[in-house]
């Protein structure tokens, strides 16, 4: 997100001699047998067998809530299984805490990184390492040297002296990997590592994973992106409702086959839609300038409009001002100049509440910091913005019956998998939390919807469902502003596409004139149009 996006930089510098490749014989390093893990009301893992070989990249695939994260938390010592056994190099092991797992050579990179922002990479890595004695200066030098060596060996291109807050999301993730390697991990667990990355960063990460495997590390890789899974993994295990459906060789399967195994039915990987019928402009943005969190100017003279009944997609490499634009419109960040209007009403620098009253709903890109109250129940989370309105409040009193009733309905129609609407929302699986946010925002029946990374972390069938919903809302006359770093998603949903580069809108085009190559070029800053022309092109939809 920060600084210049690195495109494939690390991977290219790295040359692996083919002959260093280990014989990837079927030497089993780890085995999980009959793992059962129950939570109140759900069996998250129901007799799972899982096997990992030395030097293997083994993907875990499954619907949202299928039990992937739970299985890996069991492996990493975060949960004790109710039944089942884990064998490492043929010997049964008992993990009580993550510390045990680390000591046995396991490493896990969670989806939300656990790094201290103001510390350097090296400080973060040695944090909590050797507690009895203070690290001496000489020690620290040795640490730096070792980190540098590890970073070079696995092509992570991380400087141990860099402070974490200056790093992009992709780099922070590589710091987590480096941390695991530093602690001597032989087995790396990556839980949806690519969900938060730009396609370029994701490609780079996949390359690193390949390097790791060639160097003899074993990797468990969780992802919802079938193409990634197919391209990087040796074997794929599919989970459904906590059970193993199949384990297949990546070379002997395809996207449709995998999707069918995950969901249990055919999945349309493409959603069709009719041409848009745009009406009056709902959201108008003019000459917008704003700063980012570090008070550096990030948005320059941004202007566009979104009409009722159309989807405007904002394409761009992450970190080119999309987050700031999203926040300014939603009332979460101040604009320095320019104007935002919704339905003719000036809402520049209005509060989130005022913007909401004008008919804006917002699916935030940063779902944990913005979208979910983890210790509130699902029912409470589903009425966050509308708590004070009828029917959820009547004559000044909360109407729990109405709150529960709407929750039951939304959970059902959006297929949020949970044993109860009274469960704390933080216990939902990643994808199901996202579905909950979508349900809440769409239920507000907004005039204008900001959908930022709406399908991040969702499985294929949930993506299909959400895409259909967004198109249905568009057809019902809603204006939708879509932010997505997935070009494919932009192309599937948008009626018009605006490209952002370095805080400016460098071009707007209709979907039938969109050309992937040209888009890619514009996203990389290859071609820019002066802003006055953009507004005109934008108007002639």
């Amino acid at each position, binding site marked *: 997100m920060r600084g210049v996006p690195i495109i494939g930089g690390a991977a290219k510098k790295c040359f692996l001699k083919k002959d260093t490749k280990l014989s990837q014989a079927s030497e089993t390093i780890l085995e999980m047998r009959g793992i059962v893990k129950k939570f109140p009301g759900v069996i998250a893992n129901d007799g799972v067998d899982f096997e990992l070989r030395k030097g293997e990249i083994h993907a875990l695939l499954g619907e949202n809530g299928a039990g992937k*994260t739970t299985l890996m938390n069991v492996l990493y010592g975060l949960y004790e299984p109710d039944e089942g056994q884990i064998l490492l190099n043929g010997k049964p092991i008992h993990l009580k805490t993550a510390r045990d797992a680390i000591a046995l050579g396991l490493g896990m990179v969670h989806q939300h990184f656990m790094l201290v922002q103001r510390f350097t990479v090296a400080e973060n890595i040695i944090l909590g390492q050797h507690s009895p004695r203070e690290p001496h200066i000489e020690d620290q030098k040795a640490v730096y040297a070792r980190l540098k060596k590890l970073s070079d060996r696995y092509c992570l291109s991380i400087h141990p002296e860099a402070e974490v807050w200056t790093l992009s999301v992709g780099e922070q993730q590589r710091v987590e990997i480096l941390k695991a390697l530093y602690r001597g991990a032989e087995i790396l667990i990556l839980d949806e590592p690519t969900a938060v990355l730009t396609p370029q960063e994701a490609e780079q990460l996949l390359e690193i994973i390949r390097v790791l495997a060639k160097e003899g590390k074993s990797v468990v890789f969780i992802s919802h992106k079938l193409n990634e899974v197919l391209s990087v993994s040796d074997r794929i295990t599919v989970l459904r409702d906590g059970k193993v459906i199949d384990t297949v060789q990546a070379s002997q399967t395809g996207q449709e086959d995998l999707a069918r195994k995950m969901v249990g039915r055919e999945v349309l990987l493409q959603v069709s839609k009719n041409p848009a019928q745009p009406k009056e402009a709902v959201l108008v943005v003019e000459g917008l300038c704003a700063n980012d969190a570090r008070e550096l100017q990030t948005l320059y003279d941004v202007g566009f409009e979104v009409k009722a009944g159309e989807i405007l997609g904002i394409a761009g490499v992450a970190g080119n001002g999309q987050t700031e634009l999203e926040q300014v419109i939603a009332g979460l960040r101040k604009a320095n100049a320019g104007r935002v209007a919704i339905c003719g009403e000036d809402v520049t620098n209005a*509060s989130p509440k005022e913007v*909401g009253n004008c008919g804006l709903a917002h699916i935030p890109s940063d779902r944990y910091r913005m979208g979910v109250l983890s210790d509130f129940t699902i029912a409470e989370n589903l009425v*966050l913005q509308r708590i*004070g309105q009828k029917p959820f409040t009547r004559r000044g009193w909360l109407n729990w019956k109405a709150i529960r009733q709407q929750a039951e309905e939304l959970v059902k129609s959006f297929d949020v998998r949970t044993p109860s609407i009274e469960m704390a929302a933080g216990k939902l699986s990643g994808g199901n939390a996202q579905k909950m946010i979508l349900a809440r925002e769409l239920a507000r029946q907004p005039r204008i919807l900001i959908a930022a990374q709406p399908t991040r972390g969702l499985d294929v069938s949930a993506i299909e469902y959400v895409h259909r919903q967004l198109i249905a809302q568009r057809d019902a006359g809603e204006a939708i502003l879509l932010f997505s770093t997935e070009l494919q998603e932009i192309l599937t949903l948008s009626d018009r596409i605006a490209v952002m580069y370095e805080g400016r809108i460098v071009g707007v085009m209709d979907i039938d004139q969109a050309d992937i190559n040209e888009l890619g070029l514009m996203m990389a800053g290859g071609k820019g149009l002066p802003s006055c022309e953009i507004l005109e092109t934008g108007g002639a939809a």
Partner: protein
Amino acid sequence: MSKSTTTNQERHLPQALVSIGAPVLGCLIGLIIGAFLILLAKADPIGAYQTMLKGAFGGERQITETLLKAGPLLLIALGLTTAFRAKIWNIGAEGQYYMGALFGGLVALYLTDLPRPLLLTLMLLAAIVGGMVWAYVAAFLKVRMGMNEIISTLMLNYIAILLMEYLARGPLQEPGGYLPVSAQFDKVTKLPLLFGTRVHLGVLIAVLLVPVIYTLLWSTPLGFRVRAVGSRASVARYAGVNVEKIIVFVLVLSGGFAGLAGIIEVATLHTRLKGGISQGYGFSAILVALLGRMNPIGVTVAALFFAALIIGAESMHVVYGLPVSLADAIQAVIVLSVLAVDATARRRMDS
């Protein structure tokens, strides 16, 4: 869910059982450690504890004493419960208590000509305003200047306490007196007593506020927003909650409660403005709110427990003859054990 580091599914005991069992267990452990302290002082622990129990609950008079102590603790802790639910750590209840006593006390000292019901109402309201004003200073500093409320409320405590001592020594000093105390309040400022006991209106007010705070937190949109801010302020802001307004609200509310407690204590017990009118109620109430799990009913139980402990320790000293310091130490050991066991149990349960 990935934040937990240890989980033991055998520990998924019914939540209710743990929340009652843990404090009881903690209390027992505290009593055992206390027993060793008593043995060290060459006294008989059983006898001492019997005196303690009798002192707190042994008869009508003792129970009355306990209730009278529990009143201010409960009242302050209910306010703090609301603030803590929003994760606003008001530790300035002590100072707000003093300011309440001061504002209410001025009414009691100078407006005695008013009809009694009006005088009492005015006195209580003035105390609430006093506590609110003092808390608002911290709220203003936080919302406008971004100053941490823990620091500001703590500092404001000292100012309030010293201000009271200065006034009692200076402008408000009893004419002709030489002690640093104000003139005695008129008899009419005594709060009405209930059912012919020594339990007064102040205790009743505290008890009545239990359901009020409960309803506020769980049955009104305002309470929902308070809890939302406490759960995660950035999400609350995204959801359209005016976070600053909530911060001001909970601080001012908790300040008002503490101020009310201040005048109730002064009007019923001390009947003068002076230093040392609190016995650390404002600080004990923090523990009461936390131990009561920031739940009004739990807070009620915790307030009674604390009051019983204070009264019991007193009679261990007065009746049984243990040194004051030992009685106080035992009290502290019990509180610590209860808090420690409770915190441990809660961590186990959360994971």
